[in-house]
């Protein structure tokens, strides 16, 4: 079973993503900011990370950099209400960029594609 770490500062989003992704058959853990995500990384060993950009403390972009210092292989999906970082981040270090939307179809499809489970 593939493991996903959801990083978002909003509790309702964390809950929604967790329930929806678990329903899809993934093992999901959540972190409320970048620091917590970095702490959970070695223990949980996720197969994929979804990362919000605007977060207090360590934001998504900083977190992405830190993760990439050690973990070059884990697919990372940036999830944000902002659309403007799309081009930069996908070409630079993340594997996908999904603009947040109530319809999670795009997010789920992206995750399945990156994990190779269709």
């Amino acid at each position: 079973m593939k493991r996903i770490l959801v990083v978002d500062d909003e509790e309702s989003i964390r809950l929604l993503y967790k329930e929806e992704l678990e329903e899809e058959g993934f093992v999901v853990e959540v972190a409320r900011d970048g620091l917590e995500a970095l702490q959970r990384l070695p223990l949980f060993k996720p197969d994929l990370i979804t990362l919000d950009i605007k977060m207090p403390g360590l934001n998504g972009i900083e977190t992405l950099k830190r993760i990439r210092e050690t973990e070059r292989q884990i697919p990372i999906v940036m999830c944000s209400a902002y659309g403007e970082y799309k081009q930069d981040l996908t070409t630079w270090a993340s594997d996908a960029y999904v603009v947040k939307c109530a319809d999670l179809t795009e997010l789920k499809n992206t995750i399945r594609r990156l994990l190779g489970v269709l």
Partner: protein
Amino acid sequence: MSAHPDGYALLKEIIDFSASSLPIETKLEKILQCITDGFQSDRSLHLRPEAILKDGFLSRVAEEKKPLWVDEERPFQEEGVLAEERDLLCPAFGCIPLSDEISFQGIFYIGFSKGRTFSSSEIELLLLLAKEIGATIRNDQLHRVAEDHERRVRQFSTLWELNKALLTTVHFERIVHMTLTAITIGDGLGFNRAMLFLVDEKGHVVKGTMAVGPNSAEEAGKIWSALSQRKGNPSELVAQLESSTENHSILNSIVKEIEVPLEHEQCILSRTVLEGRPFNIRLSFEGEEWVQTRCERGCALSSEVGCYVSEHLSRNPKIYAFATIPLWGKGKVIGVILVDNLFNRNPITDEDIRYLTMFSSQAGLAIENALLYRNLEEVHQELKEAQTFLVHQEKMAALGELSTSIAHEIRNPLVSIGGFARRLDRTLPADASEKRYTRTIVKEVERVENILSHILTYTQDEAICVKTLDLREVMEESLSMISEGLRNGGIQLVKTFSEQTPAVKGDYYQLKQAFFNLVSNAYESMRGEGRLSIRIHPYKKNGASFVGVEVEDTGGGIDPEALHHIFNPFYTTKDNRLGLGLPIIHKVVTSHQGQIEVDNHPGSGATFILTFPAQEEKEK
């Protein structure tokens, strides 16, 4: 005494001729003939002052101011007679100096080939006649001086009137037109045509600015006869002419094309500017004395302007006279006035040039002032535009910042609301009545999300991804995005796409979005019935190539009240609309260095005209 002339009859005859309006040469000829006939002499002459040679016997007569009589009783002392004067010596002759206290008009001479004696009454009569001849000549001279003065007074009054007229305006075109007209109207300088060239300091060239004058001799005739019927002083005439002539003459357009670099030192226009002096030039291809050295382009003027002159300005280059006068601003030459008499061939005199120079120094200051004023106006206008643009930019920036942060803040809760509503919806049995509520939440959240993405498209400065595009293809793509519902009504679509449409540089997705907005607006305005015409065509403006995209609908046009606001964000007349459709089009078009215009016909329809600069040929 062989003949005894009737003194009174002779005197009367002579006075009649003297008082006649004949030219002075004819008058004198007739008077002398009368005297010759009356006295039955061999000849009588008027010897002009300049014809009297120094140190001869005639000069002695002139100096002494005393008549000389030679006859059988009064022999001639042949001393100091010049060879040239021998011809005048005959058996009997008289020389009477024509002079008063102030002036000397020469000598009256009467000669007889046969010996005779002058009686005292004959001498008296001849002295009287000589006095009359002198008076005739003096009168003529005075008359000429008076005429000359009168002309000067007329010229000065024109100058004065023009000056007054020039003070009434600072409008550049009007001042230039007035000046050139004053040069060409009869009471002013009366030249056939006048042209103004101004120095462009940035480009270091002399540029044709305006010309006034008829296109042909026929037209010239018409204008002159019309002018002679007009009453009023020159400034009124100038004002009348100004209001009645739209300056669309062929000459005006030819002159506007002329541009001579100041480096062309051979050119008369450049020389007039550089040397700051007038040139009075007469060209004749036959008369050797007027032919100038040929310039490289082979015209007879040693100048570039000669090429223009002989090719364009003159239809008969065999004889062509023109003059150039520098136009002085404050301490420098700001332009050149070129005048000619192409149609009536009147010669241009040095007097004309002097007067024109005086005239141009007045006009020069007025024109310079007008130029400064025009520059001021232009700068003012630019500043105003820049200010409006900045205010708009600032508004947009503020709006952008605000809406971006709002959009972000709203998006997160929306994801939760919409996401959980979906989960709820899935858990409800298909026949549950609550299903209606969850569906509504899902749908409404979707709508709000759409609005947000619209706002973000408008406010975010998305990087333009520039490619070479065919706007016809972009338009076809946009048309294919129009929903079935809109397309399947009673709307007739007429596409006119020119084969010669050049390519344009731009962002495919942005342009597609803009065209889509434009076309769907047009469809919606027609409510299922009407005609939608889309035209794409190339066109040229000021030598540059553009592509025009026109979308014309029959949807009743735009309310004139609303017209000023249609490009303002969030302005809408439709329900359930955000009002960002046209602002997005506007933003996309301007970011592509294009322009958008609306041709609005309230009650019938509207045409949106978009223009984009075409990609230059060499870039392809």
